[in-house]
């Protein structure tokens, strides 16, 4: 009877070899399932062996049973392993299929940008607002009265020639300076209620042929402080702060100058930041760069606005925003501001706040 056992054990060995080989060679889960059915199913080869148990001597049946169960466990383990391996393989395959060339460029949305003159304007406004200044706007179509006469520039004053004017009719003009805002604000301000501190930015116009350094339209910012105790030292300190804020420059000088609406009048130069004062094309070999005009408000301007110049006084200054931007960003043609080449416009994005 042990012959029968030996035969079945030999058969079991064959099944083991056959099964292992098939599992190893299986390429997908369907195949693995077929193998499971073929060997372990209700009509599978291991079940067949168990059916043959009746031919085996009863004392050997236990041995055979153990052998079959052990092989079933082995097969199950191998199948599980194979299944897992296949899953991993599938995932890997899928991931490989999903592979992107990460070096290809991304889709960029359109990015907006601020005009460089606006950057200049906004920056200065913020600077002055921080010091308690109001931002004021006035008309560009200005009257002779506010643009000139209130500013101590009566008709036929030779200094009117300093500013070639676009006239609209006998009384109206395109403002040549933002100073008209000063007059309007002074007229409205009640000095007894506290100090006046304002800046007035805006477009101004001069009758000039456009070239690299001249533009018939440009932008200015006017500043005005009026109260009982405002000194020229205060003006100097304020101007130095502006220079430092905009140009990071610390060396400045004040020169006597002339504006009809201030007395004394000064212009401020900063040390050429390009050459440090040795002389270069940017400073026209002067070592200094003129950046703004200023002065103590002329008593006539105060009186014209109904303010008692014996009690109140103050300072005023005017900066050219185009000029500031030209100097700060080494722009060599003022027309660039107004022709709006998209490449010119967008390069200043990083300067925005």
């Amino acid at each position, binding site marked *: 009877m042990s012959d029968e056992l030996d035969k079945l054990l030999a058969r079991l060995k064959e099944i083991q070899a056959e099964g292992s080989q098939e599992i190893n060679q299986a390429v997908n889960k369907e195949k693995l399932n077929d193998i499971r059915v073929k060997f372990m199913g209700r009509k599978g080869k291991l079940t067949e062996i168990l059916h043959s148990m009746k031919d085996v001597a009863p004392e050997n049946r236990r041995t055979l049973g153990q052998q079959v169960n052990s092989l079933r466990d082995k097969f199950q383990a191998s199948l599980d392993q194979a299944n897992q391996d296949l899953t991993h393989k599938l995932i890997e395959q899928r991931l490989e299929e999903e592979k992107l060339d990460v070096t290809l460029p991304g*889709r960029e949305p359109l990015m907006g940008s601020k005009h460089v003159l606006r950057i200049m304007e906004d920056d200065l406004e913020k600077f002055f607002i921080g010091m308690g200044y109001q931002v004021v706007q006035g008309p560009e179509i200005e009257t002779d009265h506010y643009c000139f006469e209130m500013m101590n520039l009566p008709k036929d004053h030779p200094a009117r020639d300093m500013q070639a004017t676009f006239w609209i009719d006998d009384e109206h003009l395109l403002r040549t300076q933002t100073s008209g805002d000063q007059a309007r604000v002074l007229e409205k301000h009640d000095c007894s209620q506290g100090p006046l501190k304002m800046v007035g930015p805006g477009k101004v116009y001069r009758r000039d042929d456009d070239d690299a350094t001249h533009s018939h339209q440009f932008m200015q910012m006017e500043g005005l402080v009026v109260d009982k105790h405002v000194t020229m030292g205060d003006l100097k300190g304020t101007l130095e702060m502006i220079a430092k804020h905009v140009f990071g420059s610390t060396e400045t000088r004040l020169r006597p100058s002339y504006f009809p609406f201030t007395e004394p009048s000064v212009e401020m130069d900063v040390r050429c930041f390009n050459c440090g004062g040795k002389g270069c094309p940017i400073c026209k070999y002067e070592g200094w760069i003129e950046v703004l005009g200023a002065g103590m408000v002329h008593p006539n301007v105060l009186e014209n606005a109904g303010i008692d110049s014996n009690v109140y006084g103050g300072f005023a200054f005017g900066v050219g925003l185009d000029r500031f931007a030209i100097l700060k960003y080494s722009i060599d043609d003022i027309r660039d501001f107004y022709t709006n080449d998209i490449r010119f416009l967008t390069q200043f994005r990083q300067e925005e706040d």
Partner: protein
Amino acid sequence: MLISYNWLQDFLKLDIEPAVLAEKITRTGVEIPTTDHPMDGLKKLVVGHVLTCEKVEGTHLHKCQVEVGEDEPIQIVCGAPNVASSQDVIVALHGARIAGNEKIKRGKIRGIESNGMICGLQEIGFPDKLVPAKYLHGIFVFPADSEVEPGQDVYHALGMDDYIFDFDITPNRADTLSMEGAAYEVGAIIDQKPKIEQIVLKEDGPAWTDSLKVEVDPKLAPKYYLRKLTGVKITESPLWLQTRLWNAGIRPVNNVVDATNYAMLLTGQPLHAYDAKTFADGKLAVRKAQAGEKLELLNEKELDLDAQDIVIANGKQAVGLAGVMGGLHSEVTDETTDVLLEAAVFDPALVRKTALRHANRTDASARFEKGLNWDNVQKGIDIAAMLMRNHAQATVDEGLLKASDEQRQPVVVKTTVSHINHVLGTKLSGEAVVNIFDRLGFGHELADDDLTITVPNRRWDIEIPADLIEEVGRLYGYDNLESTQPLLPETHGGYSERETKIRRLRKLVEGQGLNETINYTLTAPKAAKLFTKSDHRLVKVSWPMNSGRSALRQSLMIGLLEAVSYNFTHQQDQLTMFEQGRVYNLDNGKYNELEHLAAIYTGTAANHNWQKQDQPIDFYWVKGQLTALLAAVGLTDLTFKAAVIPGMHPTRTAAVYAGERYLGFVGMLAPILAVKNKNLQGHDMYGYELNLEALLPLMTTGVKNEPAPKYPGMERDISLLIDKGITNAQVVDCIKENGGKYLQDVQVMDVYDGMQIEHGKKSLSYRLLFLNKEATLTEDVVNKAIAKIDTALFDQLEAKIR
């Protein structure tokens, strides 16, 4: 004005480096942007004496033996037509450097040895405009009286060792438009009293003043002085005088003209010399021009005179334009023997207007306009006469004819030391302040705090206390002012509400990917009227630079279009740009400035990408951007109506309304624009323009929290077939009117009018969103609403529900 350092030495003892002095003057008085040292860069230029000069046959050249202070004369070949023996000339020796850093070497010209070069003034750096006419096309020859020795450097003799300060004079400091004025100014700066010499003129001719009947309106000429000089012999001026003139930027002409120019430079008083023959009829008048009167000026310009022009006339006609320029026919010529010399003060405003009117501003007119020192009129005329006496063999006839002679009293200004300190922020003592006025040569009186300053007539710019403060401030030195910050009561800085709203809009638009531009206000009149819905009168400038910039824009779009066109010509065609600024018009005699916001789009809705996900910009993209922008500032209930606006595509443009209020338009720019401007061809452009004056008041400023709904909503889709002519707005309005109170939103899902659809019809699909914020919606409620909508769509719009 060009101020010579060497000439200043006549008045002041200058032991200070010219560059240092220039910086000091700049910081204290008058800006000196540049200082010129004419001999800079020149080398080995000496005086040569031409011993012999022989023509080289068959050429224009001369072979010269020239004594240059060496053992032997040197041989130089010279091509100038005016070279001759016994001349003293400028020689560039071997190794010399002349203008333009050019090096001179010995060599051979046409095979003849040449050991240097005889120079003209231009060759050593003089600009053409300063070279006396007779030397303009040849070498310079030292005048006989020059006292130059062969071999010595030429620089001193020609004034080239000088330092020339370019005084950039502001209109108020015309007092420094003379050497004496400059000397006073520099003297005050360096604390020296300038040496101003008075002169006594010898008159050795007969008395002449009765021989001329002079009529002067003192309103036109408060001072009018004349002198007569006879026996004048016109020649070239002595070299020292010529060098002073050319260093001051004035070309030497002859000994009479040069005398008047020199006297003007010295004293600031303009002078004019007439050929005395002009007034042979014994009459001279200073009067206003008469109607139809004509005058030919020295520069051969023919003028039709205006009744406001002041002229100098003889018995018959105008012979000169007072204070501006003499007439051609009264000019001093080489044949002139008798000269009438004029020194006057003319009305500044009238001179200014005349010079402007005839576009003929001169050195003299600029001086009359800016004012003169009334105390220097006689000195001016006497100096000129003396120079003619000394250098033109003139006899000065006895008598100074003062046809008008108004006096000006020195101005007295009162202020206090404490006021000066208060304005400057200084703590100067009365003594220190007085010292400054002393340096200026002003009269001063100090009583405690009270200061009385008497201003000499040479400083006619000083009238009020503020002017005195400036004098103290600048001479004390702005460098010495302490930098402080205003110590004032707290003020609150910031923008107005209007400004804040405008800034918010700009920021939002920038966030939508648009690039800000700033365009010109002035444009062509036709262009200025484009892109506006209603017709307004244009604002125009009366004297434009050119017709393309003569009218103020009525839209921002016109500027954006110009910017886009500029970019197209520079190969940039992916453009999304905006501008926020003003437009202008004239309504009922009132000038209006309206804040606008406009955007222009051309190209694709995203940057180019390799995945082809950069769809071209179209109407609905731009409309979407505009809608989102307005929604962001609280405007969600907008109406878009098809509109025709000049410059915009007539069937692809909508007017945008908030309620009844017209805000602006959105659409495609008219293709016809590309017919006129070829740069625009092949580009589709879209855009919008908003009138912020209408929009700003509608912008919401305060938000109240509305809790997010807690109950679920319900969506229903409906599709309908409808006449093609019916708009989406009509359908949506109908749905909303009939959708009941729980209908929250209506979204267009699909629009189709292709092949599958009956001709003249289109298919529309909508998604309807229902929501009850208080409770969960029931099917029944929504079904009823949908049924009502369906019926209304059928009844009102003949829509077939599908």
